[in-house]
């Protein structure tokens, strides 16, 4: 497991070619990865689903729809995130206007502790969302390439794709 600036990442947290039919299915698949590594608590999944219901996290970008499910720090042990790239979009509700649906191809399941250390993750990961070409390119990567990109991104060695 890679430890970089208190962010835990490993290749198996990055999944490509996901075949899911609902946001719940993607979230559960990615959440299981975080749970199995002890990065989040057993209550994490229900915390995420509850929060997604109350305040959804779909983001309409200029290109590929993304979602950033996350929940209160009490459900999280370590700063980390899992990324799922979907074969076909699943529907999330929009963060600002929940009555609007967003077709999401990339899900970033965030595990954030209360510590200020996650500022850096947020800056680097969310900084990608406004770059159309980067989001498109993320769809084409293998699991190994996807992990490698985010590993380098968090280490500050790569900023775009």
């Amino acid at each position, binding site marked *: 497991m890679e430890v970089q600036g208190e962010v835990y990442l490993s290749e198996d947290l990055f999944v490509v070619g996901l075949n899911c039919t609902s946001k719940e299915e993607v979230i559960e698949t990615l959440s299981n990865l975080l749970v199995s590594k002890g990065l989040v608590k057993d209550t994490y999944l229900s915390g995420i689903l509850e*929060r997604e219901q*109350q*305040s959804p996290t779909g*983001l*309409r*970008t*200029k290109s590929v729809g993304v979602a*950033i499910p*996350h*929940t*209160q*720090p009490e459900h999280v042990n370590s700063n980390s995130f899992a990324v799922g790239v979907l074969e076909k979009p699943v529907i999330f509700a929009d*963060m*600002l*206007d*929940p009555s609007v649906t967003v077709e999401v191809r990339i899900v970033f399941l*965030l595990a*954030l502790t*209360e510590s200020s250390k*996650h*500022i850096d993750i*947020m*800056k680097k990961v*969310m*900084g990608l*969302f*406004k*770059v159309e070409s980067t989001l498109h390119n993320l769809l084409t990567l293998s699991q190994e390439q996807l992990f490698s990109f985010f590993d380098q991104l968090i280490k500050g060695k790569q900023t775009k794709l």
Partner: protein
Amino acid sequence: MRKKVIFACATGVATSTFVSQRVMQYCEENGVPIDYEQSNVASLPSLDNTADLIVATTTVPYDLKTPVIYGMGIITGIDEDEVFHEIMKVIKEE
């Protein structure tokens, strides 16, 4: 006097972190540093009138005296310049 901005999202940990960092950097680069606080949206009524501006990335379902600007464009890049422009208008007000 420095203006104070509250950055609010649903949990007060994720999007408001990102948006606050970007806005603080922008304000500093434009020579008008700000004070800031992060909050979850549910706490906003109790913080009303304690700041000059609220920048939110989730719907604010309250009638507040403090002006609210939605900062989603700072994440998605859609109308980002307009969002920064609106924020600067409030920050630069005498």
